[in-house]
């Protein structure tokens, strides 16, 4: 795909205009998932397993159905059978079949005329369970004797002799590992563990669903990707995708957690059975118990380094549990583990393991933060041992254009070196520290994504333009799309309106995930609006009676250009649009593709912490994010992505964790105990936007959303070590763990 590229001389790109949806969102008018109402609407409530692992022997809903106003109860019996692969996994996760696989697993649902009544009815549904042995820890789940959660479900990749909970096995690498370690002056090897965390979006999942007996349905839902919702829900219910129209609401955060379905197929099934629209809204504890937190992980890393800091060899083994279903992100975790470095010999090994926990979902750079915690902590330990500067050592080994990546291919133009140089030059890196304070640094990577993308643009009669994209706006992407359209057409930003289209209005779009929205929908927006300017040039050429080759588009106008063009005053987009009905009809542009030129983004973070030696309490004093954005379309929202990723990473490093009791039940199901950072926990988060243009985007955009969550885990661990003299190799670094380490050191 030849792209008309431009990396300098922008008029709109790089400015910070108000976002188009700003007023709706500061006045309470914006409509989110739970803000929809329909005539005759019922309320749906789920019945969930109180056991980590239990056979469902019988479900008796008679008492619930006897209540006046209760309109339908569904169980797995109301869903089609015979699904395979991931379709089956999703159906099984949305509504348990024979066995409840984790605490909170849905086993039935009820719809009633009010929410209070539905909640009352749900309590009256009697489920007879036979409790089975359970396992929630990844290392325990691989041990002989651990209960097999789905025996026989392992795929082709798993070698014989492993526990049946191992679903997938991966192994790859290059170079001579033994020779690499032999050439090193220092070889270190350690084991690291990370606990599961949750995306923690503030808006619980919500949908309003209607499905008729004829299989035709509609749904309003908060999601990162409504085509995904359509495909998954249709598969789970056995209906045609075209018969289900899904409209995305405004979305109150997702971070990967809203790229799949949980309540949506169930709401549709209730609606089909009751013959009325059904609204379902999760409670916070349902969100924490039964949506898609991250994997937890257990990681072995070994590295060899010469005295001068040259890395000679590296090996990583990752064990990740992704709940009671396969597809823990071992693949991306391994690919990111050593991606920052040019190491002659690398080897990767990964185990995807089942445990009695909810099915993991994507969370901002899935897998990469865990891998970085292990490898970037070890790099820091080795730099300490060899008395090397941690940033300069990273720079010395940094991946750059032409480096053979740890995961195989050769890197195109990338920006790690530039972020490291900017971090070294940043005043933060040389600022003085007080007692009990320490500084940590780390780098991180995310490969980003293109994905299926379809965008339409339509010219209005006054010269304004409507752009319809299929990627929900979670963090200001309407503004970015409008800036790119304005830039490409040479019209004011305010003259572009960006809508998020429903599934009935565009071809298939992947979700706003993989840091792809600004890259892929942006690229498609630029190409779509260029079709408008091309058509407008034709209209002008017709009017002037000159060949279209002699007309150029510039500053929002068609202009004659070249020796044979003749002298005509420019025709503005407004003038041409006013006449379009009589000059050939409506004008629109459309572009669809699966663009593959997404460029990876590297980041380097610097953090200062202070550790209270008597309590193990860690406060974050100063934080700086340096990251390559390729080109920042709307810099304020790029900074926002950097800051948000850092904050989530800090939470993961210090206090966030899934805590399971001996009974296999989740113990911290409210925000009081699932401790995400609050405003008073954090300092201002400084940002440095590095711009190494991505050749795969017309304006050089790289995705920026995910990389920022990767460096904080090791950066904070490295800072804690510097401040308190103790190395924490398990997350979170909660005060009891830090204090215990300080006491153990003596």
């Amino acid at each position, binding site marked *: 795909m030849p792209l008309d590229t431009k990396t300098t001389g922008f008029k709109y790109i790089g400015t*910070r205009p*108000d*976002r188009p*949806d*700003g*007023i709706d*969102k*500061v*006045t*309470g*008018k*914006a*409509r*989110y998932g*739970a*803000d929809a*109402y329909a005539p005759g609407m019922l309320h749906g409530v789920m019945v969930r397993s109180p056991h980590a692992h239990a056979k469902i022997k019988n479900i008796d809903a008679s008492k619930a159905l006897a209540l006046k106003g209760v309109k339908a109860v569904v169980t797995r019996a109301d869903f089609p059978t015979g699904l395979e692969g991931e379709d089956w996994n999703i159906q099984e996760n949305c509504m348990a079949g024979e066995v409840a696989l984790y605490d909170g697993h849905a086993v039935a649902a009820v719809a009633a005329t009010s*929410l*209070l009544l539905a909640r009352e009815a749900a309590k009256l549904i009697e489920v007879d369970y036979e409790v089975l042995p359970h396992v929630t820890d990844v290392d325990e789940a691989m041990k002989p004797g651990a209960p097999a959660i789905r025996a026989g479900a392992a795929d082709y990749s798993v070698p014989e002799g492993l526990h049946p909970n191992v679903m997938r096995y991966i192994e790859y690498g290059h170079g001579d590992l033994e020779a690499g370690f032999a050439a090193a002056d220092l070889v270190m090897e350690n084991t690291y563990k990370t606990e599961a965390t949750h*995306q*923690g*979006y*503030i*808006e*619980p999942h919500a949908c309003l669903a209607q499905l008729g007996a004829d299989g035709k349905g509609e749904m309003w839902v908060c999601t990162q990707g409504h085509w995904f919702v359509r495909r998954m829900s249709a598969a789970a219910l056995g209906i045609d995708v075209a018969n289900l129209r899904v409209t995305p609401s*405004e*979305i*109150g*955060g*997702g*971070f990967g957690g809203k790229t799949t379905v949980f309540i949506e197929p169930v709401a549709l099934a209730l609606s089909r059975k009751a013959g009325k629209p059904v609204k379902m*809204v999760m*409670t*916070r504890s349902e969100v924490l118990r039964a949506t898609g937190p991250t994997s937890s992980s257990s990681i072995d890393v070994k590295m060899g380094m010469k005295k001068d800091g040259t890395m000679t060899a590296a090996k990583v083994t990752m064990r990740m549990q992704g709940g009671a279903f396969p597809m823990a992100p071992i693949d991306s975790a391994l690919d990111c583990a050593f991606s920052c470095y040019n190491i002659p010999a690398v080897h990767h090994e990964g185990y995807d393991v089942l445990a009695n926990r909810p099915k993991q979902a994507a969370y901002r750079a899935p897998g990469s933060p865990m891998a970085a915690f292990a490898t970037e902590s070890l790099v820091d330990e080795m730099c300490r041992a060899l008395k090397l500067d941690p940033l300069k050592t990273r720079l010395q080994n940094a991946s750059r254009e032409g480096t053979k990546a740890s995961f195989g291919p050769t890197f195109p133009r990338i920006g790690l070196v530039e972020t490291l140089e900017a971090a070294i030059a940043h005043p933060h890196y040389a600022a003085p520290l007080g007692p009990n304070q320490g500084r940590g640094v780390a780098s991180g990577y995310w490969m980003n994504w293109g994905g299926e993308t379809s965008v339409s643009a339509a010219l209005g009669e006054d010269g304004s333009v409507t752009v319809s994209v299929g990627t929900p706006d*979670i*963090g*200001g992407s309407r503004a970015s799309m409008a800036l790119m359209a304005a830039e490409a057409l040479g019209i004011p930003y305010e003259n572009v309106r960006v809508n998020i289209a429903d599934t009935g209005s565009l071809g298939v779009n992947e979700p706003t995930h993989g840091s792809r929205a600004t890259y892929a929908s942006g690229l498609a927006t630029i190409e779509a609006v260029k079709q408008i300017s091309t058509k407008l040039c034709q209209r002008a050429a017709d009017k002037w009676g000159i060949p279209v080759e002699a007309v150029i588009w510039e500053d929002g106008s068609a202009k004659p250009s070249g020796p044979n063009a003749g002298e005509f005053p420019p025709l503005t987009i407004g003038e041409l649009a006013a006449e379009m009905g009589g000059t050939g009809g409506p004008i629109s542009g459309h572009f669809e593709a699966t663009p593959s030129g997404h460029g990876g983004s590297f980041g380097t973070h610097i953090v200062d912490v202070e550790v209270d030696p008597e309590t193990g309490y860690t406060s974050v004093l100063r934080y700086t994010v340096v990251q390559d954005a390729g080109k920042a379309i*709307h810099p*304020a*929202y790029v*900074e*926002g992505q950097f*800051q*948000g990723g*850092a*904050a*989530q990473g800090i939470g993961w490093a210090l206090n966030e964790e899934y805590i399971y009791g001996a009974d296999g039940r989740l113990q911290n199901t*409210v*925000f*009081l105990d699932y401790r*995400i*950072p*609050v*405003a*008073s926990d*954090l300092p*201002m*988060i400084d940002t440095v936007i590095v711009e190494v243009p991505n050749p795969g985007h017309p304006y050089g955009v790289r995705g920026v959303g995910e990389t920022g969550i990767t460096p904080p885990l090791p950066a904070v661990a490295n800072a804690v070590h510097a401040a308190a003299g103790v190395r924490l190799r398990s997350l979170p670094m909660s005060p009891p763990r830090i204090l215990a380490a300080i006491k153990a050191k003596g």
Partner: protein
Amino acid sequence: MTQIHVTTTVNCDEVEFLADPRETLLDCLRDKLGMTGAKEGCGTGDCGACSVTVDGRLVCSCLVLGVEAQGKTIETVEGIADGEKLHPLQRKFIQHAALQCGICTPGILVAAKALLAQNPDPTEEEVRYWLAGNLCRCTGYDKIIRAVLDAAVEMREGV
């Protein structure tokens, strides 16, 4: 269920509704009065997305019963702007890109307005502690704090 008749004032308008005593003020605002600006993020008073003021006092509307609103004066995010004219906090939030997904924004605006009403010149630390009960997962709070401090300056200077 016996519903109780409640008369209350919301954003200067007198309104009436019937409430089951188990329903929260948040439920009543959203489901009975159609005012969906206040959001439910947790239902347990931990996230602040449902913040409103009752008789001038900042509260989580999920921790107030609808029937307790009888005779009270309630202000919500829908009442912050003066008609089409945005409040300085609202303008500064847009200008500073202090919202990403925007779900926490209504609660934070209500809370920040309550802060500036009693402390027109807060320090960064005071803003952070006052807003500690308003969770935001997108922004890392940086731009929110800047927007509040900037709005405070504008309101003090009476621009």
